């Protein structure tokens, strides 16, 4: 077991290196430092200022190989800074990236955490409900509603939500954010609602399939034959045995709690990591984007390792060689 964990983690690290290499290829081979500088410092800046900026951000070094001092290339810098979490400064406004990530994490989490937890609970609950009533019109309607929900663009959810709930019905403020908890709840209500609505269709359908597959198995029939109540079967047997697919889905989505939601955050004016990324995209802020992609990948890899290990713990059948 320990050997497996160590090996799995080591492989995860190799994948991290692969991600870094890919990021390097994406962000460094393409970027035109002097234009990035112009964008960052301003149209009106004279050439020497631009050059100074390029030097300050380390974009003047040789890309792959430096014959004079082999450690002093962009490639080495890239790996070094990413692996030590020293992300440096934004290409757009020179703000320290790590600090901004730290600052943005709170708002992002305050949006994604409720969406995530309520979403999982609601998804599992509703799909149990639907699976319980399967082959009645409730189930069929539920499935159709899920497909309907999945077919709408997230843009439409947001625009529609803001327009209908925020502007016409005036239930919640249209957008904004406030760090004080009491006010925050009011501001977060609408984006959370929209986020929930957007994800619910897909997750109910997924969990429903899982549950229905489980209810078809022999042990459920045995339990029923033994005279177990339906509710008990659903709650104890089916839910318990459906844990693996649920766990996979849940664990894999954990990284997105940190990276935030690009669209929700920028539409609702939440100063989190998602809107930070949208800014980075619009501002060609490669340094920030690179750091965010890296952190997102890192979290994802970590989550996957955890899932794999959790598998072995949850399900005695899964044997990993």
């Amino acid at each position, binding site marked *: 077991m320990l050997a497996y964990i160590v090996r799995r983690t080591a492989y995860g690290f*190799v*994948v*991290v290196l*692969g*991600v870094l290499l*890919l*990021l390097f290829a*994406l*962000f460094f*081979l*393409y970027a035109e430092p002097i234009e990035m500088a112009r964008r960052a410092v301003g149209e009106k800046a004279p050439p020497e200022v631009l050059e100074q900026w390029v030097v300050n951000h380390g974009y003047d070094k040789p890309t792959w190989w430096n014959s004079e001092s082999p450690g002093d290339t962009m490639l080495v810098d890239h790996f070094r800074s990413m692996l030590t979490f020293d992300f440096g400064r934004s290409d757009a406004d020179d703000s320290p990236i790590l600090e901004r990530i730290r600052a943005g994490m709170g708002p992002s989490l305050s949006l994604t955490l409720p969406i995530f937890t309520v979403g999982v609970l609601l998804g599992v609950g509703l799909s149990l409900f639907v699976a319980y009533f399967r082959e009645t019109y409730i189930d069929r309607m539920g499935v159709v509603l899920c*497909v*309907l929900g*999945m*077919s*709408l*663009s*997230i*843009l*439409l959810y947001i*625009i529609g939500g803001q*327009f209908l709930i925020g502007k016409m019905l005036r239930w919640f403020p249209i957008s904004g954010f406030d760090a004080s908890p009491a006010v925050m709840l009011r501001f977060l209500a609408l984006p959370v609602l929209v986020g929930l609505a957007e994800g619910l269709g*897909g997750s109910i*359908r*997924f969990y429903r*399939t*899982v549950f229905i*597959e489980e209810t078809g198995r022999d042990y459920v029939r045995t339990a029923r034959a033994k005279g177990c109540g339906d509710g008990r079967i659903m709650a104890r047997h089916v839910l318990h045995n459906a844990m693996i*697919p649920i766990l996979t889905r849940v664990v*894999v989505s954990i*990284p*997105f709690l940190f*990276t935030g939601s*690009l*669209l929700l955050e920028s539409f609702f004016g939440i100063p989190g990591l998602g809107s930070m*990324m*949208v800014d980075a*995209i*619009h501002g*060609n802020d490669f340094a920030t*984007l690179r750091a*965010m*992609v890296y952190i*997102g*990948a890192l979290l*994802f*890899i970590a989550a*996957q390792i955890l899932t794999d290990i959790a598998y072995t713990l949850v399900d005695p059948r899964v044997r990993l060689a």
Partner: protein
Amino acid sequence: MSLVEPHVLSNIVVAVLLGGAVAAFAIARRSDLWSQAGRELIGRRPIAIGAIALFVSVAMLDSVAWVGGGGAAGNVLEQSRPRSVVDRMFAPDFKEKSYSAPLADIEFYGGADLSHPGSHLLGTDILGRDVLHLTLKGARVALLIGGLTSLIVIPLALLMGISAGYFGGRIDDIVFFVVSTLASIPTLLLLIALIMVLGHGPVQVCVAMGVTGWVGFCRIVRGETFKLRELDYVQAARALGVSEIGIILRHILPNLMHLVVITFVLLFSGLVLSEAILAYLGIGIDGSWGQMIDQARDELARDPIIWWNLVAASTALFALILSVNFVGDAVRDILDPKTLGEGE
């Protein structure tokens, strides 16, 4: 200037597609399995299939274009431009100066007279273009996104997945490493980064979507090939002296076809929906419904609101995705009794 004009190329593509469709239909007819699945599908989801057929034919009609015959009188430029069949269904100068409501007689703001009063079924957009026309043209873009990307995703995933699953060993290690690396990066971010690198344009966007999209399918193919490789009939084929390539082509690939069909259908809706997000980020494809929705974002804030643009684009998008999702569900039920589990 390219040797082949874009519209000629588009016509050729349509011809090839039509030919391919006919050929595929003929092959499917010969195969009981496929023709039976097809019949069952049409029986189960007649409306959705009809809707998709409608979208496809609109897209096809919009892809067949030629120069001449039409264009506003006296305007050499418009006359020299190729116009598609869909374009020809509308008058050459079917334009207003700016917004007009559906079937309105006067301009929405200012109330000036329209040049085509009462004939814009879905109104006009900010530049006075007919919204119905734009919406119909969006079908082509949507199918282009789905089709072109699938054209990249499916062969790539099949190639990588089969070679990893069939040959195993080093090849599998490499493919698996590439797959896990790509899969670790949040899809949307990778997509954006790729588009930044590749540049802006329909082909580039599709390539970027292809690069990010093949990973999931590749995993499925790899796993399935792994299973197939050990099956007795593959072993029997080996014993019969069939070469590796022959086994892959005759035994592995045909037994993956149902996965290809299911993946294609499920991939399609996801792709078209993510293009809408790209449109919001300013890196979408021109003329897509996503762009129309993105544009309508501002229009909802106008007072009185401009609703027809948003409604037209999102209804079209919704109808297509809904039909595809319904058909996708049915296809999955028919072709794969086990149900594969949704997405990743």
